């Protein structure tokens, strides 16, 4: 699913965010990305979904060669990847339904299929009855579930979650984790950056720890490893 070889990233301002990352992540894996703020987690994630370009090295994601990829191919990469953020990134003027339908309109799906698929994914995250609400009328956990529904609407092979529970209370966080586990069980690869010791130590999965732009630990069924 993801193959990285000696990835380095230096920002124009001289900051060296990644200093040689080599990693393989297979289809269907669930991977936690841990590390202090500023360790390079965000850059690592941004390179995977084409928001930043690596300075050197090779990256393959879902069959796309990100190093030799032209800018106009980025939208096609994005359609194979679902992304969820700490701040949800929902459009406040659109209803829950429209926020999710948006991702399908982009790939020019038929209106009939859009209706069917939107209700399907809203059902999957338990928000079928809130389709007509706007994001501000929902709780944080519900908003994140809308974001997840939008991310999986296109049947992505890879779901990237950048601190999806960062803004949520513990109970809500477990709800979100339950949904992510279900999505993973259905075959979608998940990469989740997190600062939650409880989650990582409770739901045991592969843990990749990044420090100073390098992978310092890659552990099967690992633990958080930091004092939070």
């Amino acid at each position: 699913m993801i193959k990285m070889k000696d990835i380095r990233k230096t920002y124009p301002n001289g900051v060296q965010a990644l200093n040689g990352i080599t990693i393989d992540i297979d289809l269907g894996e669930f991977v936690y990305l841990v590390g202090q703020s500023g360790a390079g987690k965000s850059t690592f994630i941004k390179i995977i979904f084409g928001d930043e370009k690596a300075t050197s090295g090779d990256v393959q994601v879902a069959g796309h060669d990100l190093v030799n990829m032209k800018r106009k191919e980025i939208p096609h990469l994005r359609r194979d990847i679902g992304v969820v953020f700490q701040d949800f990134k929902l459009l406040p003027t659109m209803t829950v339904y429209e926020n999710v339908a948006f991702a399908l309109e982009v790939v020019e799906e038929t209106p009939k299929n859009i209706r069917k698929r939107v209700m399907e994914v809203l059902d999957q995250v338990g928000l079928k009855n809130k389709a007509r609400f706007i994001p501000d009328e929902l709780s944080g956990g519900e908003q994140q579930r809308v974001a997840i529904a939008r991310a999986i609407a296109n049947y992505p092979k890879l779901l990237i979650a950048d601190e999806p529970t960062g803004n949520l209370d513990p109970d809500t966080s477990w709800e979100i984790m339950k949904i992510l586990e279900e999505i993973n069980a259905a075959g979608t690869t998940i990469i989740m950056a997190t600062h939650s010791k409880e989650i990582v130590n409770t739901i045991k999965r592969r843990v990749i720890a990044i420090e100073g732009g390098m992978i310092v630990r890659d552990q099967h069924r690992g633990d958080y490893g930091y004092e939070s």
Partner: protein
Amino acid sequence: MRARTFKRHIREGLKNTWRNSWMTLASIGAVTTTLILVGAFLVLLLNINHIAENLEEDVEIKVLVDLTANDAETTAVGEELERLDNVKSVTFSTREEELERLMSGLGDEGDIFGLQDQENPLNDAYIIKLDDPTETVAMAREIATFDHVEDVNYGEDFVQNLFDFNAYARNIGLVLIIALLFTAIFLISNTIKITIFARRKEIEIMQLVGATKWFIRWPFFVEGMLLGVLGSVVPISLLIGGYYYLDQNMSAVQQFDFITLLPFSPFVWQVSGVIILIGVVIGVWGSVMSVRKFLKV
């Protein structure tokens, strides 16, 4: 692009215009203000030009034939004049006709001079009109060198001043219109930039879910077009109403027949077309330029 997607862009563009109603109003306000100014200047400029053309139309050159010239020589002068480029019409006027015209011009005073009792001191004359009246001075100089031409009259001072004034008026008007258009584009693209800045999140999310550049641009494109059209509603209404009023009242107070306005129709419709076109162009241009700023991919 599929028809379905095209319909989606139109729908989104309309929806966004409605959703961002305050920004929409601000943009329409900017478009409206500038289009009113542009419209007023266009009306003024085109009418000044029209009046100038009328005045220029009236400019004629009177070629006085030598008193000593016989009939054949007089006819030869006429033929020579006919052969000139840029000559629209040549009219012959005998010295008797010239005298008649002079006397009727003087009215009763003519009788006092008792001109009809004396020997006619006037010349046979050719009155010519030019295709391009601005060439009058040069033409007159050329004609003055012909054989059997005694003198050439064309109201030298008046004509030169008229043409100078007309050229000034046209150039100044043109510069003003162009300056106004640039101001308009700047103003509108700024307003739209603010509108779109408020919606950079929307653009960011569209990119996140894999929207192509054009997919993102289209609704903004539609929106810009709509802003342009909506922004031209008030200016066009003012134009139609104002020009109708002017047209009705000008003909009533008109004293000089060379000061005529361009006829209401089709002039008003042509200017309306130009206003809508300018509105749409700056609306679309403004939004496309501003979206580009936020399209990182």
